[in-house]
């Protein structure tokens, strides 16, 4: 807070011909927009997700179970010649003990996971250094948005860098995470997210990083991952 605060607020109130504070109040905006159709099956939604994600260069697929996903990861790593894999702290990775299982499956690859005490600056620095060198990162998701092929990740579950620094980013998702559109996700987050619910960063990821700044030519992998993969584990029951 500083001296200009009062000056600026004063100018605004004069400009709006409003003598003092307390005159403005909040009023809701009538929701004129057609509401989105009810929740259709997760499988149908994921079909839609796949279509949109693929259209922007993402690589979505369905895996029947975690075994199939593990097989897929082995192929992915071998195919691209990845040497370093980073696994996030996200619930789905912990549940399947992914880091452990992968180090056993891929002895020639260095598998590393986000662990330790995030509140110690030393651990955080080590984390960053590791991530900067990773070829592939594996994280979970918090929400999937069918309408645009978007993955939404909260900073509470995994770091921001793990989905950003490596060359490729693989998201493991589950059917309960998929929603038709962003509006539905926000309703889930709560219309007025109370203190504490909202993590410091919510990141929406739609396909790989890209740019068209040179003669409008589309290039993948401007600053973030060149490949963005989303695998849905388990069909809807």
């Amino acid at each position, binding site marked *: 807070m500083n001296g200009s605060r009062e000056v*600026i*607020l004063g100018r605004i109130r004069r400009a*709006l011909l409003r003598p003092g504070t307390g005159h403005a109040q909040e009023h809701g905006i009538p929701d004129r927009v057609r509401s989105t159709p009810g929740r259709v099956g997760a499988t149908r939604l994921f079909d839609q997700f796949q279509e949109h994600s693929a259209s922007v260069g993402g690589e979505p697929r369905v895996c029947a179970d975690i075994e199939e996903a593990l097989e897929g990861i082995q192929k992915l790593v071998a195919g691209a010649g990845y040497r370093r894999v980073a696994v996030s702290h996200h619930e789905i990775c912990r549940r399947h003990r992914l880091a452990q299982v992968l180090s056993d499956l891929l002895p020639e690859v260095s598998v590393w996971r986000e662990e330790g005490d995030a509140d110690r600056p030393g651990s955080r620095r080590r984390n960053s250094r590791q991530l900067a060198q990773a070829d592939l990162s594996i994280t979970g998701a918090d929400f999937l948005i069918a309408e645009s092929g978007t993955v939404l990740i909260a900073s509470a579950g995994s770091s*921001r860098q793990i989905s950003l620094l490596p060359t490729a980013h693989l998201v493991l998702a589950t059917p309960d995470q998929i929603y038709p559109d962003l509006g539905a996700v926000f309703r889930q987050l709560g219309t007025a997210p109370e203190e504490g619910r909202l993590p410091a960063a919510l990141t929406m990821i739609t396909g790989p990083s890209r740019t068209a700044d040179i003669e409008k030519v589309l290039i993948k992998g401007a600053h973030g991952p060149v490949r963005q993969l989303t695998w849905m584990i388990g069909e809807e029951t």
Partner: protein
Amino acid sequence: MNRTPSQFRILASENIADRRLRRTFQSATGHALGQRAQSVQLVPEWEDLRERAHRIKEEAVEHLDFYLEKLEASVIRRGGRVFWARDASEASSYVVDLCRRLQASTVVKSKSMAAEEIGLADALEAAGVQPVETDLGEFIIQVAGETPSHIIAPALHMTRQQIGNLFHEKFGIPYTDIPAELCAFARQRLRREFLSARLGISGVNFAAADTGTIAIVENEGNARLCTSLPRVHVAIMGLEKVIPRFSDLPLFLRLLARSSTGQKQTSYVSMISGPRREGEWDGPEEFHLVLLDNGRSDILSDPRVRRSLYCIRCGACLNTCPIYQRVGGHSYGSVYSGPIGSVLTPLFQGLEAAKDLPYASSLCGSCSNICPVKIDLHHQLLWLREKLVSRRATPWQERLAMSLFAAGMKDPALYRMGSALLRLFLKVSGKSNRPFTIPGWSPTRDFPALAQTSFKQWWESSRQQGEGP
């Protein structure tokens, strides 16, 4: 290169004469428009969305004091800090002071029109801090010592060969004009900067008052890097970027992505609420939000142009504008170009300093039709023209012609006499085909020839011959 809005005529005619540049702008804007049209078509409720966005912006701007105070309180509650900056120098010195405190010799910066507007990069350099532009387009023009030519694609005016030569000369890498290789070089070079910088600077697309969340929209990932890696993050926003509620974000995100690039969603949207929280793996330890006035409260005081503050900087009005398509972004001599630039620049820098810009429009209204927040841009341009006329800022010849015209239009006898005299004069001088040369007008277009008879004469004679209605 220092261009000013007062040079519009000169710059525009130079740029129109440059055929390569004209082709570049026409094909790029055409491409963007096509993409946009395709993706908008898929949203049947598009018009409803625009209307709703307009009303939300109206709510925010009409109660700006209320929502800004609310935003401030929310950011503070989330552990962030808020700085109110009256003008460019206050905002810049706040950031410079931050650099001093952090002993930062370089800072990484993602795209921010507000930072561009206040000349933050120059201020930092003057203070001995190296600001590194990290958006690919911004990086290119920073290396070239240029200024942006489009809100969304800053290096739109440059060819791949120019960029290849530039990198070859400045960085000593082997010449290449393959875009992917140029991009890969920039990525690698900038990675180093990201990993070592202590301060990251970003812009703000939307700031939700109720949660103190700022949203940053991008495709490359550089804004994510700027806001995740450095120890301190400072975000700079114009006052008008505040929106009432977090729950309004989905609407604006949909409108912005589709309007600017035709994407359903940009590659990345970061929604940031304060600094890193306990237990989180990364994120800045300090979060600063700079609220920039810099003339916005003045714009607010004129209800007729107040709506220009609804702008979400999507760039669609630039792409659709027949003037912008031909003269390009640099002709406007300011950070904001195209129709919205023609409105904002005179308001920010003073009408006299930018008096050609309100005329840089055919008044076709295409900008108003495309605007996702329904700003009536062409009306705003007309009002600015009206202001200029009432301040007698137009040339005396024009004023004379207009007052004669007004007198004639108000008095039928005078009108008849005037047009009869004119016809007689043209007949005698034998110039009926190309009646006048008017400086500034006739070199580029023909003055229409006068009809042989007046409408009234024609009407009466055709009635007599029984041809008329």
